[in-house]
C-alpha cells in the first residue's frame, strides 16, 4: 500500500511537471495539483486520502480546474482579438464553473448555459457578413445604373446587412470600421474606405 500511496503522489507530481511547461495556460490545474499533493502530505495514508477525496466532492475541483483553464485561455484569445461577445460567453461560463460545487452542478449549469447561449453564434454571424457587405459596396461603386449586376449587388447588400444588424445591434458603417474583428477582415485602408462610404450611404438611404 505504501507503494500505491507513493504512486498516487507521482500521479499528481507528474501532471504538475507537465502543466508547468506552460504555466500560464494551466493555472487552475497547477493549483489543483498542488492542492492534492498537500492533501496527500496531510493525510499520510492512501485510505485517509481517499476518504478525504470523497468528503471533498470526489475531485470536483479537478473538473472545475480543467474547464476553468479551457475557458479562461479562450477568453484571453478573444479579448486580444477584440471579439467581445465571445469573451462575454466565456466569462459567463467561468462564473458558472466558479459557482458549481458538485460534478452534476458543474455539468448541468454549463449545459443549461449552452441551451440559450447565442453569443458566439451572433459574433460569427456578424463577422461572416462583413466581407459580403464590403464586396457588395465595392461592386456597387462600378455597377452601371439599372444594370442586372447592380440589382444583384443591392440584393446582396440588403441580405447581408440584415444578417449583420440581426447579430450586432450597433450595426453601422462606423461600426464596420471600428470594431476590430470586422476591420481586420477588410483589405482597404481608411482612405480607400472613405471612397466607398458615399456608395454605402447612397444605397442605404435609398432603401
Amino acid at each position, binding site marked *: 500500500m505504501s507503494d500505491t500511496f507513493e504512486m498516487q503522489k507521482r500521479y499528481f507530481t507528474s501532471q504538475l511537471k507537465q502543466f508547468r511547461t506552460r504555466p500560464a495556460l494551466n493555472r487552475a490545474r497547477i493549483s489543483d495539483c498542488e492542492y492534492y499533493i498537500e492533501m496527500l502530505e496531510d493525510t499520510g495514508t492512501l485510505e485517509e486520502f481517499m476518504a478525504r477525496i470523497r468528503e471533498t466532492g470526489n475531485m470536483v475541483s479537478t473538473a472545475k480546474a480543467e474547464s476553468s483553464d479551457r475557458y479562461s485561455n479562450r477568453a484571453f484569445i478573444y479579448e486580444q482579438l477584440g471579439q467581445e461577445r465571445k469573451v462575454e460567453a466565456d466569462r459567463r461560463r467561468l462564473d458558472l464553473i466558479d459557482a458549481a460545487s458538485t460534478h452534476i452542478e458543474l455539468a448541468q449549469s454549463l449545459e443549461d448555459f449552452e441551451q440559450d447561449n447565442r453569443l458566439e453564434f451572433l459574433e460569427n454571424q456578424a463577422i461572416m457578413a462583413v466581407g459580403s457587405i464590403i464586396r457588395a459596396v465595392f461592386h456597387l461603386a462600378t*455597377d452601371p445604373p439599372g444594370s442586372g449586376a447592380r440589382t444583384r449587388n443591392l440584393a446582396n447588400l440588403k441580405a447581408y446587412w440584415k444578417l449583420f444588424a440581426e447579430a450586432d445591434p450597433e450595426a453601422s458603417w462606423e461600426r464596420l470600421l471600428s470594431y476590430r474583428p470586422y476591420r481586420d477582415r477588410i483589405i482597404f485602408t481608411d482612405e*480607400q474606405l472613405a471612397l466607398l462610404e458615399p456608395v454605402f450611404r447612397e444605397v442605404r438611404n435609398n432603401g
Partner: protein
Amino acid sequence: MDSTLKQMLDGFSFSLNNYSNTLSPDNEKLMRAKELMASLTEKAEAGADMVSISTDPDFAAVGMLLGELASEPPAPQEERASAPQQSQAGSAAGGVPPASIAAAGYHMAFDALPAGAQEKQSKYYQRIFDIEAASPDAVHFNTMLIEDGVLFEMSREPLIESARETLEKAEDVHSPTVNHQQSLAEETYAAVSTVAELEYCGTLMAELSNVEHEWDGMFIEVMGLLPACAQAIEAFGPTDENVGKLRNSRRFMAEIWGIIWDDVFRDNRYLLFWNRVFWPRVPMEKRQKYDVHSAEGWRDLLKEKFYDPYIMDEPSVEHYPSRAIVSLWGKEYSADRTLSLLEDPPRPLISRS
C-alpha cells in the same frame, strides 16, 4: 460473461461500494442504484452481451445515479453503511480497485470503434492495455498513463496528421493562407505538451487563419475586377451593361488603388490565382475556339479582344503605385507585397504569460 462487460460492471460495483462507505445505507439513490446493478449483473450472468447491457435503460439509469451519488454529501460516520460487497467488485487491498476497473472504459471505447478506426487507433489502445497489464492497481495504472503520455498523444497526433493531410491537399488549392496555417499547425502541435495548450494553440491559429483566409478572398476579388469585367464580355458579349461595368471599373480601380490592367498581372498573389486556379478552369472548347493554350495567352486574349477595344475612346487613367496599399492586421502595406505577407503574415503577437 464477456471480460469487457465484467470489467465494466465491476467498475460500477466498485463505485457503489465506495459510496456505501460514505453514505447512509438507506440513501434512496444508493439503494436504487444497487437494485439496478443487481438486475444488470443477473442479465449479464444469464448471457446478455455488451450491446444489450449497454442499451438497457437500467444501464443508463445506473450511470446517472452514480453521477448523482458523487454529489451526495457524506453521511455522519455513525450513519454510514459498511460495504460487505467490496470484495465482489474485485478491489485490491486498502480499497484501491484493480487496474482492470480503471481500464474498463478504454476496452469499451476500443470495442465500440468501427473496424477502420480500430486499426488506426490500435497503437494507442495497445499501449493502454499494456500499461493495464503492468499495473497492480488503478492508481498505478492512472499514474503510468499520465507518465507515458499516450492519452495526450491520442489527442495530438490526429491533429498533426490532419494538418499534414490538409497541407498535401492544399497543393491543389494554391492558397497561401491554407499553406501557412497547416504548416504552422503541424509545427505547433508537435511542440505542445498539455491538452490546454493544444486547445489554446488550435483556437488561436484557427481564428487568425480565418481572418487571413477571408482577407485573401477579398483581395483576389478586388484585384481581379478588371480581368473579371473583360471575362464577362468574353462570356456574355459586349452588352451596354458589361461594357459600362468595365469602363466604370477601370476608372474606379485607378481612383481607389491606382491600379491599371498591367498592374493586375504584375501582382504575385493575383498571378498565383490566375495561373493555378483560374486558367486550369477555362473550358477546353474555349481554348480551342481562340487557339489559346496558356494562362499568359488567355490574359493577352482578354486584353486585346475584350478590354482594349472598349476603352479606346475613354479618357486615360494613370496608375499611382503609392495608392496601391492594403490594410492587414491593423497596418498598411504596399499591395504588391500581398503574397509574401500571406505566406508569412504579420500577425498580432498574442501570447499568454
